């Protein structure tokens, strides 16, 4: 896969410049815990109809910052963003909590340290 590093400031512009709705397919937004209370986010894209390795935009940032949303030009990203918010306890612009988890569930199950 082709990895492209982005930063918190230019993530939306980079993806917007890259993304062409008629050719690219937004796979998903993936998140991972990174050391030192950081989080690693990956926006994964593929192309329609051709054999090509997925393109991945990666961003590593602190857990407590507000992460910009890409839903303004990729409306279907709302699902993955809401899921990430639930699972990792991060905040993403415009994504509500409570897609999967209830009030008495274990909060941010994937965001905590494993025993």
């Amino acid at each position: 896969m082709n990895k492209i590093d982005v930063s918190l400031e230019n993530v939306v512009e980079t993806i917007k410049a890259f993304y062409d709705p008629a050719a690219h397919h937004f796979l998903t937004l993936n998140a991972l815990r990174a050391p030192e209370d950081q989080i690693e986010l990956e926006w994964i894209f593929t192309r329609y109809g051709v054999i090509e390795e997925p393109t991945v935009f990666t961003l590593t940032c602190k857990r407590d910052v507000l992460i910009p949303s890409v839903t303004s030009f990729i409306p279907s990203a709302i699902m993955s963003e809401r899921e990430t918010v639930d699972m990792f306890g991060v905040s993403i612009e415009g994504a509500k909590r409570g897609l999967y988890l209830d009030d008495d569930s274990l909060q941010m199950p994937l965001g905590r340290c494993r025993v």
Partner: protein
Amino acid sequence: MKKTVEIPLGSQHISLLEPIRFRFHCENEVIRDVDADVGFVHRGVEEACASRFEFKQVGYVVARVCGLCAITHSLGYTLAVEKLLHVSTNERIKYLRMLMVELDRIHSHMLCLAHTSENAGFEALFMQIMNDRELIMDVQEALSGNRVQFDYISIGGVNRDLSVEAAALVLRNLALLEPKIDELFERFTNNWSLSLKYRGIGALSLEQAYMYNTLGPLARAAGLVTDVRLETDDFPYAQVGFEIITERGGDIYARNLVRLRELKQSMQMVRNIVEGLPEGAIQEKTKGKPEGEAIARVEAPRGELMYLVRGNKTSILERVRIKTPTFSGIPAMIEIFKGSNFADAPAILASFDPCMSCTAK
């Protein structure tokens, strides 16, 4: 004053196989807005895969994400882990895996068509399709030992070989099924309540399909050329006669046609696979622990399924990310609901063939 009426549907309803709750905001008969609550079956598989189970067991755990497309889940995971372990499988294993995936597609599409006809009021046709579907279930049982949760795929190979008797059974049952599918074709194109009534209902245009990143039969019915079998080279699909199927219009009728045509094509592919099965062992040697990050994509009956696996040289994986087809399809579904009649809602919903167990994991 508020102009819209709220009508809830679900979480338990006769036209729903699985719990999902919709809240339709209707103005007279027309749906203006929809809220969907999809989290009813969230169990927490992703977390368990990365903490409670070893990587060799995870393949059987992720199969329990969804019973309808269990085989594609284990296949997606296995492909990703095999990339990390640098295992390459021989042709026979690839063919056997393809065989099971295509059989799974056949029975899943038949279930969807049965459900569509039930929602159109054809109780008898529902029963008939379910009966014909048993032919495929028999084949799956003979091949793998279980009807639904067949844990057929293991890391580095498959768990059972195709015996001569089983191969004969596959061919015999497919020959029995073929005329029945032709008859269904006739029904779904000529019967008024199944064909004309559904023209133009629940339509998704090509622009919308691009915009909402739709997948699988939903996208192919709108004319979008996307199929993971075409976009990856993990399996020799071209050798067994795969060609992409698209329709125009994107309405319920087109979706049914896509499913029917895919059924026929999958049957042909199964036949080609059984007849041209290469020789070889059914298990490759694997060693080591997964390290690094890999993405694997498989075409499940409802669209693209993605697995992202990251390992750190221990037996417990660091991250297993499951992206299921219905999960990415939900924004498009909500878009389709807007503007259609409330009375059509169950039929539209059935034509998406949603899988909530997949969505919520």
